[in-house]
């Protein structure tokens, strides 16, 4: 069993949440490494040396062609200097070894646009996407979420109701057709949904569902449960003082985002050699 597994947080080209993502990994039990994408392209750093990959939030390339579109393209074509290996091949090998990946916000958008999520066909074909919020606006607000206990997602194990901030303009989850949604539902891939704080039930009502996501979906995992993407930011809630109502509610010291990283660490310790 790994004592202190290694987490990598890829930075550069507009990632913004690497600092708190690294802190979250550390609190989860990982040794955390922030690595600029150029170090992967130059061959100095290889994903093989890590157990957990974080694709963190930000505005990759300014989201200029739509969120994460340019980075998805870059990772598809980029070649590691020296070895000639495609970055995508390195990534597929990481996935093939059963190592978990967490994509938050822009990282989720990246995973979806690379075809990694929901990843049902396994072919990398894009069957779902994240598009502009129905409000037409970027918004920062805290939302209530409900985890699906029957989901294979390893990150949400043992979770029920969670409160986290969303901070995005393109977070509306949509699918290519009804069949895709049925596949997601039947395989329990929608690990996290937006809920009404009063009823606790999944909701399409703005602002509780902040973007109009199909099926109230806030986060989705691959059938293996090892790849997980979500629009809300678990790394933004590491301590109770991050919570917007911490001065008026009694809350546990540990923030509601930390368990995602603890779960990842627990999984890596148990499952990886």
């Amino acid at each position, binding site marked *: 069993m790994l004592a202190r597994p290694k987490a990598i947080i890829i*930075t*550069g*080209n*507009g*990632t*913004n*949440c690497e*600092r*708190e993502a690294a*802190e979250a990994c550390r609190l989860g039990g990982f040794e955390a490494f922030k690595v*600029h994408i*150029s*170090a992967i392209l*130059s061959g100095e750093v290889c994903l093989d040396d890590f157990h957990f990959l974080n694709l963190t*939030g*930000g*505005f990759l*390339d*300014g*989201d*200029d*062609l*739509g969120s994460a*579109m*340019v980075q*998805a*393209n*870059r990772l*598809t*074509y980029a070649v590691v200097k020296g070895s000639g290996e495609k970055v995508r091949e390195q990534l597929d090998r990481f996935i093939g070894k059963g190592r978990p990946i967490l994509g938050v916000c822009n990282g989720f958008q990246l995973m979806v*646009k690379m075809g990694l999520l929901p990843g049902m066909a396994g072919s990398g074909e*894009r069957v*779902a*996407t994240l*598009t*502009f*919020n*129905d*409000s*037409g*606006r*970027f*918004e*920062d*607000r*805290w939302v209530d979420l409900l985890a699906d206990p029957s989901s294979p997602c390893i990150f949400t194990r043992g979770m029920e109701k969670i409160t986290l*901030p969303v*901070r995005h303009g393109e977070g509306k989850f*949509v*699918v*290519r057709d009804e069949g895709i949604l049925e596949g997601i539902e039947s395989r329990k891939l929608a690990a996290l949904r937006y809920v009404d704080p009063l009823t606790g039930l999944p909701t399409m009502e703005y602002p509780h569902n902040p973007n109009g996501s199909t099926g109230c979906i806030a986060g989705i995992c691959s059938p293996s449960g090892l790849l997980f993407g979500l629009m809300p930011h678990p*790394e*933004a809630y*590491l301590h109770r*003082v*991050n919570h*917007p*109502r911490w*001065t*008026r509610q009694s809350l546990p010291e540990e923030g509601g985002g930390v368990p995602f990283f603890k779960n990842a660490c627990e999984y890596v310790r148990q499952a990886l050699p």
Partner: protein
Amino acid sequence: MAVRVEVGFRDGVRDPRGERVVREAREMARIHLQNVRTLSVYTVDVDLSPEELVRIASGPFTDPVIQEFSIGKPLPGRFDFILEVGFKPGVTDNVGRSAGEAVSQVIGRSLAEGEGVYSSIQYRVTGNLDERDARRLVSQVLANDLINRWEIIPWEGFDPEHLSRPEIPRVTISGGGKVSEVDLEGDAAHLMEISRSRLLALSLREMEAIQGYFRRLEVARRREDYGLGAAPTDVEVEALAQTWSEHCKHKIFNARIEYRDEKGGTERIDSLFKTFIVEATRLVRERQGERDICLSVFKDNAGVIRFNDSWNLVFKVETHNSPSALDPYGGALTGIVGVNRDPFGTGMGSSLLFNTDVFCFASPFYDRPLPPRIIHPRRIFEGVVEGVEHGGNKSGIPTVNGTVVFDDRFLGKPLVYCGTCGIMPSVIAGRLSHLKGARVGDRVVMVGGRIGKDGIHGATFSSEELHEGSPVTAVQIGDPITQKRMTDFLLEARDEGLYSSITDNGAGGLSSSVGEMARDTGGVVLDLDLAPLKYPGLDPWEILVSEAQERMTLSVPPENLERFMALSEKMGVESTDLGEFTDSGYFHIRFAGRTVGFLEMEFLHEGLPQMELVAEWDPAPSAEPGVLPLEDPGEVLLDLLGRLNICSKETIVRRYDHEVQGGSVVKPFTGAKDDGPSDAAVVRPILDSFEGVVVSNGIVPRYSDIDTYDMAANAVDEALRNFVAAGGDPSAAAALDNFCWCDPIQSEKTPDGAFKLAQLVRANRGLFDAVTAFGIPLISGKDSMKNDYLVGETRISIPPTLLVSVIGRIPDVRVAVTMDLKKEGNFLYLLGETSNELGGSEYYARIGCVGKNVPRVDFEGALKRYRAAHRAAREGLVRSCHDCSDGGLAVALSEMAFSGDVGAEVDLSAVPVRGSDLDDAALLFSESASRLLVEVEPGRAADFERLMVQDRWGRIGVCVARPHVLICRDRRELVRLSLDRMKESWQKTLREL
């Protein structure tokens, strides 16, 4: 050959960008549209095979789940008009730049010189509109003719062939590399003609000083050695004009002023800056002795204070007013990414922790005819907010605090204050991080974006005629991603200790950045022909003074140059070696090996003659309004809650990411439903520590109508009051001053200049008195002195405005306080006295009068109160705290109650008062300074009262379960309102914006 690629949403997919146009067309241009579909259009001017083109169009350009594309011909569809909006040549096109990168990824090579991708947006509009409406829609909603080009195509006679032909907005300028001499020999009229025609903005005395320098024999002799004639080159004249600009030298703040008061007394002030700003800080620091937190003040791009033994804070606030008046989006975006470079270029460079922003606008509902060339305040509002949103969010810097002030005198010039705080380890690579200095032999290295004609002569409208291919210089659009890549790289270079000094390229471009850094060594040689350009055709003087964004200048020791360049290349950032710092005593500028400028450093920096100005304090007589109409105080309160200066700004603030980086503790909105207005922001910069930073702002331009002394004093008080309300320690705080004035130089076009200068003098005195009494040092600041609009007979001047931003420490963020009421049964205390001070209040503004009794600040009393309140917060006695400002006690109480979803019942007879003539309105709505409203649990009341023993306070009421606010005076009921009604009034004003 160039090809157009159109990308649009599939049928049935919502198009929120189009829906927004429908909304804005209705609000801004009163055009009612049925439907708008938007398309992204990429004009790809790259040598590609048809197969590559398909891979690009279907890959990075199109999301196949929701979009479709068409190459070389329009996507099918039915519409009434096509409105296609792109950029003019030379305008920063971020989408085009990213698209170009995506193309080069696909084809596996960099784009060649001259190749490029250009973006535009196509709006397919249906609705009841004619061609005139379509033109109006473009000019009032979709485009800005300073930066955009557009085409309007009606369905009638639509020819798809037409939209298949690409138009390339490439900059085409011929020539470049030219240097000419400027003949200064002649009379005053000749000199002023040069100043005017070259847009130098130099006065006759300044032109004469330059003339005098070039007439000196020894100067001419030295110039001969380098092949220069006696007359200056255009490069030299432009370098001098930039260095001596009001923007760089703060000539008004450094002028010799003769001040006359209303009684005929006179006083001479040798530099407002030295007399009031520098001196205030010196005094405060001297008194604080060992507790002094200042590390670097007034000498760098931003002020530096100590946060703790290991970390320093760096803070700066800038304005970007004129560019925002011309192009609100680009102006504000450039403003925010521009001010980011200040803390980034301070000391050895800091990482950026948060932004603050404060805007001053005319009413977005302004419905009178607009003078020529003024953009409607609704559009200014939208553009500025979006610019700051993109600038902050895309850079990953949380926008944590700010406000919006409304006054219709901001119609001619909106004020856009952007602030950024950075943090740096106190020691970096073995050296104190707040110090820096280029050394002789260090290389001059420019890092980041390339140079174009952007922003030459700042915001001055170019008199040069615009032709088809001429780039736009007046306004710029910031590029957060290019800047982010640069800062990612430079922070690594910093930590490796690869450079000795760093500064940003802002106003004045290289002329300013290199000229300033060369003061460290006493000279520099700069090779302008090495500078990377966005397009060919620039003359050397243009390269020198271009204000193209996203660039830093560094001094790199020669032994580190190789490593520096290698790291730069690896991280995809362009860096260029442009020359060497020397001790020659000269700013030596070369182009292609030839000397094109050779200026004495001494003259460049010290040769500017001091301005001499007259100030005359001659205020118009003011009076209180006398007997007011009797109104129901509850109705008045509801009305006040909905006024622009008081109402909720949540629709704006939600658009800013206020918690990226993970340190957010007190957010802009707080309370039971996350919608109450916080007084200040609290941020935890080091994620495994509980020490925090508190930041707040104070701004009260309305009080300038009575006396700018009190305006300034109240601005400081408001900022500190907000700071303390959230839990900040007033003994560990520093402030920034940011003056925005109307032209204070007496002249034919400004007949009241002497009065406006007197207002400036009095504001400085108010600022000095306040910060010295409070013991908060001023660490940096800024002034913008010409916020007037003058076209034809119409003149609009802003009210004199001072923004004070306070930053400081909170020892442990877990003692921070928010403003929302917490629990029924708790006591409500009002700290501080209330006087009949409705002058300049929102209450008076509501009935269209100004009054006379402006709030006066009792500095000593206030400071005692703030210290005691901080102590109470530290001891955990304060459940909530809110400052009384616009709208007075009644508004503060209402906000606390509806934010906390807890009712309140108070009796005004318990309010401590000064004076005996306080009617109900004064008790409810007076804006007397330095008051805090505090909630305390009954069990802690005795402890709390013991801490407040030296102060005047009143226990005015209690929190109640019933969701209402009840305000009585003795037995007489004045206000009884439900929380819902109050909140609705407060929220509805700007909800739809």
